[in-house]
């Protein structure tokens, strides 16, 4: 009978492996793209059938960034087939009738009133925090950062919010250049990221 050779690692090697694994986990946690948003545990999201997407506030330097991302978000949400998104013109009419001042931060009363006028189950507001080219040294790349929140129109409460940022300067951009991904591609990735957090 032949005895199997026992594989024994030295104490030093085991220690080094543990430290290495810990460091890897630490860095991976730092690199994580997905940011956990808020989701009201008491809200029945399946009851939301009609949504009004309000104009997004734009904090970037690009003039039309809010409108562009709102367009992509509305079409993507509609394309899921899960909910119906009201036409933007109808939302504009409702906002004018409800006299909503700031679309990005409607008050509870505004949200309830707007929901009644538009016959919408929920409102979505958004803020574009970054949209455009970012530079670091001689490297540049496109970046998009957007956050959205959903307000339920019965009570005016925030029931969901999410944030996504895409693009930016990566390792390969620094190494090889290239200017990163096109703006439209990363916008769509960011919007898909948000919608995945909703459904």
């Amino acid at each position, binding site marked *: 009978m032949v005895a199997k050779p026992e594989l024994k690692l030295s104490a030093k090697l085991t220690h080094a492996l543990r430290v290495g694994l810990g460091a890897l986990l630490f860095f991976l946690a730092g690199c994580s793209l997905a940011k956990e948003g808020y989701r009201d545990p008491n809200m029945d999201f399946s009851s939301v059938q009609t949504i009004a997407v309000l*104009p997004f506030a734009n904090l970037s330097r690009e003039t*039309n960034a809010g*409108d*562009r991302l709102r*367009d*992509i978000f509305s*079409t*993507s949400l*509609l*394309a899921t*087939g899960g909910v*119906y*998104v009201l*036409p*933007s*013109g*109808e*939302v*504009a*009419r409702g906002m004018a009738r409800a006299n909503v001042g700031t679309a990005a931060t409607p008050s509870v009363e505004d949200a309830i009133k707007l929901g009644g006028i538009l016959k919408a189950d929920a409102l979505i507001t958004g803020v574009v925090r970054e949209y455009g080219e970012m530079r670091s040294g001689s490297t540049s790349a496109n970046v998009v950062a957007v956050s959205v929140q959903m307000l339920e129109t019965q009570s005016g409460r925030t029931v969901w919010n999410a944030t996504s940022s895409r693009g930016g300067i990566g390792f390969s951009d620094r190494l090889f250049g290239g200017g990163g991904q096109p703006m*439209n591609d990363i916008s*769509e990735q960011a919007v898909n990221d948000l919608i995945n957090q909703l459904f």
Partner: protein
Amino acid sequence: MTLSISSFKQLMVLLAGFLCFVPSSAATPLQQVAILPVNNLTTLPIPEERLQILLRDTLQQAGVSVLPAKETALFLSQHRLRYTGGIDRKTAMALQSETGVDGVLIAKVLNYKETFPGRIALTLTLTTNADDPRIRQSGAAALTARDNPGLFERGILHDFKVLEVRAVNEAVAKLLSPSGAPGAARQRYAPALLYRDPDLTFDRPLRIALLPFKNRSPRPYAGEIIAALFAAQLAKLPQVILLDPGTARQTMLANRLIMEGGVSLDQAQTLFGDLQADLLLTGTVSEYVEAENGGVPRILFTAQLLEQRTRRILWSIESRNSGSDGVFFFELGTVLNPCRLAEEMVRAGLATLPPRKES
């Protein structure tokens, strides 16, 4: 007898044009058409009169009777008609009763660049039925001097006039084409996002009113360009009756409808009622970059169909492409004309509409 290369080329183009324009016996013949002044959607002045003459001559060579330019001009001045991008019911009725024409040809020049490399794009729509103006036939052409460079770049067109004649010939040939079917949609230009409600069915031909597209791009008239290309493609679909955009414009003016943030349901109701339309088509152009300095064009637009019965969006697309999409080797297949790119995108977008249901 000697014949210069340039004259020979022009002769060949005219001959090719003549061979294309044998009138179709299958299509209902028109007695006479009026050509409205060319609608300039470029950002620079264009030789409108020269294009008008070229268009009239080409149509006449194809066997179409055209109302003399003087009579058309007289009618326009008598009725103080300045907008020539469409025709409303009242004007179409007056034109028919006063001049006897049974069709109105509306030409839109979408781009026009005479300096090398030349570029030209135009759409032609023929509106008939004066009491209910609708687009019966359409044709479009978008060409550049470098479309077919060929071996050792011998196919590059250095003479812009040849390109101009070729574009007008192509647009007229498509306008008078007996089949009238739109070309095959290419997958590379398919919409990036698509929503199609199962309620959208074409049991019968549905009446579509085309509303203006909102333009968020820096290029002036980008909304009108995409709308013109939608009109040209929609008119070829058998499941659609396309109302002349002039009718929707007139309704909007008469009812003081200003669609700043898009069409609202109240406004839509007014339009549905006045135009007897089943669907409203509208959209937004977010990006329209023309190819300059060796670059390729880039276009991004959205389009929606709002239905009269349900008052809901039943079809929505977001389309975005660049001229180099699907190009891998030696720039083969690169689209240099932005209108050609937009035309392909519109065609691919409309290919996602359900076909007409046979009863």
